[in-house]
């Protein structure tokens, strides 16, 4: 259990949409969002811990637990939320691939459809493992960010100040970005993925301490990388307003790669997007299949596992089609993360109710103090989403 599921799950968050959101935070508010990111880190740690605890103590995935512990209607709600959020994520993965190839001067409509078909076929016809390693190596390009952060000479005093001093703005743009930051960090699919990973390794309650350490470290590590992306971007293009394009985001890597910054950025983007582009739709199909109680396996034919494979195919197809729409890529990427942020609190409520149940977890259920802390996290996340929704609705009527 070296690089455990917690680590992998949390780092899948630093994909195309994640990079776009963090880079936008850096360029728009310089170091202004750092304190908020610290809050989000705390939230992520708690949420991932709850997910892996459920997995370790029950030996079941979240999809199965929701079906067994809630009414069918509530199960349907959770499943719909997960599918909606995940399809949004798949859109962002393909948009990320599109943005990356456009950096290299290839039109996106030429690349996205074949990329979608290729990913779909790789997973279904089984040489995905091999391809995955290539994607993984490509996505290592993003480890240039911490180096870029140091070489970019940020104002360390300012950075430290913003990490510990609360700074929140009431403007709609800030709230929107904050929800996107929540969405890209505490995205619904991660909890499902983390729990499934634990179950799949056959972890027992006795292994819980190890698993918890893995989940917590993974979450902290992923958020650490996110912080370096914000700081690196802020020190290069901070204060230039909202992020305009992928090329602008790539500038943050200039201190490391000089003229090769765009190439490096594009490589990382393709790798990370392709990696998540297979895992995200799979984990959603897996969770839905688990909840519905149907066959779920990629080595079955469409006749044996129609729901599972159909959902997987539909998500990829829909993701690729939406990613082809001629919307501004950065807006699309951040938009998908806002969607995740809006759905996230709903899934968190399920998670919270499940971990509070003594009938399910026995002594491992949330204690009174933990319950208060976790509830605060969920309420906080829900509050941000609600504020954004209210602002948006008022905006339609011209009241803001």
């Amino acid at each position: 259990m070296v690089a455990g599921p917690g680590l992998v799950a949390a780092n899948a968050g630093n994909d195309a949409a994640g990079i776009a959101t963090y880079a936008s935070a850096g360029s728009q508010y310089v170091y202004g969002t750092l304190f908020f990111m610290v809050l989000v880190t705390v939230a992520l740690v708690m949420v991932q811990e709850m997910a892996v605890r459920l997995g370790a103590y029950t030996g079941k995935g979240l999809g199965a637990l929701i079906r067994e512990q809630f009414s069918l209607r509530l199960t349907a709600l959770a499943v719909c939320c997960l599918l909606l959020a995940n399809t949004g994520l798949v859109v962002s993965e393909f948009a990320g691939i599109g943005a990356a190839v456009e950096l290299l001067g290839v039109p996106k409509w030429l690349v996205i459809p074949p990329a979608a078909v290729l990913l779909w076929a790789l997973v279904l016809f089984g040489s995905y493992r091999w391809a995955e390693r290539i994607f993984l190596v490509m996505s290592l390009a993003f480890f240039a960010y911490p180096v870029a952060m140091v070489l970019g000479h940020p104002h360390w005093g300012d950075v430290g100040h913003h990490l510990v001093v609360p700074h929140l703005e009431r403007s709609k743009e800030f709230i929107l970005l904050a929800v996107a930051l929540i969405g890209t960090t505490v995205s619904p699919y991660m909890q499902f993925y983390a729990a499934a990973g634990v179950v799949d390794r056959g972890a027992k309650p006795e292994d819980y301490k190890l698993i918890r350490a893995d989940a917590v470290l993974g979450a902290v590590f992923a958020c650490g990388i996110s912080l370096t992306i914000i700081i690196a971007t802020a020190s290069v293009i901070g204060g230039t307003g909202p992020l305009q394009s992928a090329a602008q985001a790539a500038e943050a890597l200039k201190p490391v790669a000089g003229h090769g910054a765009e190439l490096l950025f594009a490589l990382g983007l393709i790798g990370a997007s392709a990696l998540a582009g297979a895992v995200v739709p799979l984990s959603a199909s897996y969770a839905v299949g688990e909840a519905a109680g149907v066959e779920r396996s990629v080595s079955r034919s469409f006749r044996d596992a129609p729901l599972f494979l159909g959902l997987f195919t539909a998500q990829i197809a829909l993701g690729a089609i939406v990613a082809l729409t001629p919307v501004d890529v950065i807006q699309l990427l951040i938009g998908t993360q806002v969607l995740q942020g809006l759905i996230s609190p709903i899934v968190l409520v399920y998670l919270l109710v499940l971990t509070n149940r003594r009938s399910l977890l026995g002594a491992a259920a949330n204690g009174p103090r933990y319950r208060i802390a976790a509830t605060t996290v969920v309420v906080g996340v829900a509050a941000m989403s609600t504020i954004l929704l209210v602002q948006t609705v008022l905006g339609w009527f011209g009241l803001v």
Partner: protein
Amino acid sequence: MATNTLFMSTTARLRDRKVDLELRATASRTVRSSLVSLAGLVGGPVTNQAGEEVGRVVDVVARLYGPDPYPPVTGLIIRIGRRRAFLAADKLDRVQAGQVRLRTARVDLRDFTRRPGEVLLARDVMDHQLVDVDGVQVTRAADLYLAPLTGRVVLVGVDVSLPTLLRRLGPRRWQVRPTPDRVLDWQSIAPFGAQATDGPAEVRLRASRSALHQLRPADLADILEDLGRTERQQLLGWLEPEQAADALEEMEPAELENLLREAPPEHAARLVDEMEPDEAIDALRDLQPGERETLLARMPAAEAAELRGLLAHREGTAGGAMTTLLVTARPEQTVAEVRAELAAQAEHRTEIAAVAVLDPQGRLLADISLYDLVVAEDTTLVADLTAWLAQFGRPVMVRPDTRLAEVADQLVAARAASLLVVDEADRPLGRILADDILDALLPERGRLHFRRFLQ
């Protein structure tokens, strides 16, 4: 003329088909009208003789594990105001779609206490996993159907179709209407109640449902892979250890590792002990050293020592892939005696491909394939067979440290189904079968597991 008969028979066939369809439609209408959907019943009103509502149905209690072929409903749990109470089945007059009528005007309320073999259907069975023995799959119960018979109500089937799930999402009016599209007969499923394995021995015996014993080991392995942790352990508890071990041999290594890790150590040790030695070794190799010791310590000393000896061989060598199960014969025996010995080894039928002939010092003289044994006369001496086989050259032998790739080459060159592993003095240590070689050399071909994305 010919066309005419063809035409005639076609119309006759069409007419027959129409009649048949009508019959089936009538049958399904009758079935439909008599079945009561459990999902529709939960939350429905309970009325007394006078037609006044006394409460609402919360859950239905049935004796799942008892002597009856179809579980009888033993009572209802109803909500009266804020209180929950148990209502025994003999108080029920009629159970119909979405409502229950009582036989009496007054209700005597008791608190519910679970008796052995009883299960709360809505809480413990509906929406939970169950094994569909006919379709060989793990599925979830979308709805349960009760059939009111004379004087009692029994649970007859389980609905597992997606449309039924959609029906349950709809308004109350839809919910009470049964939709028996894909209904599994209660006889052909293995349900998991929370309390399924509590209670007296005969209850448990009934729980190890005979239906499960029709499954082939490979199917059982698939099912074990699909089940949740608690259900998996329950199912293992119901099976005879021999049957369970056969299924474990067919499982994906990673899944088997999980299963052994989560089982109580005594049970896991028993299962590994029942497995064929070569498969048991593969399983033990995947475990952590500590876990391996835990299991070995709980096995009978002789078996544990044998497995420890095998574990000493490196993986990927002949010694690591062989089975220590050897059927041996002496030259002075007759073919009939050897056959009798083989017959006594029926439980290991998949591991036997030939019989090794040994001299008094235990050295190998010949390896007689089953074909040669089958075609030989009963009275033939093994010594004669050995002499006759000598014209085809020495039997194929490898040392325990031979690499598996080379073992495969030898096997192919010899065109045999198995070959013997021997020590320096040509004393057989074990046998390698063709399927073990295939297992070791073929890439893993698993079903989807997240593990694939995590390693």
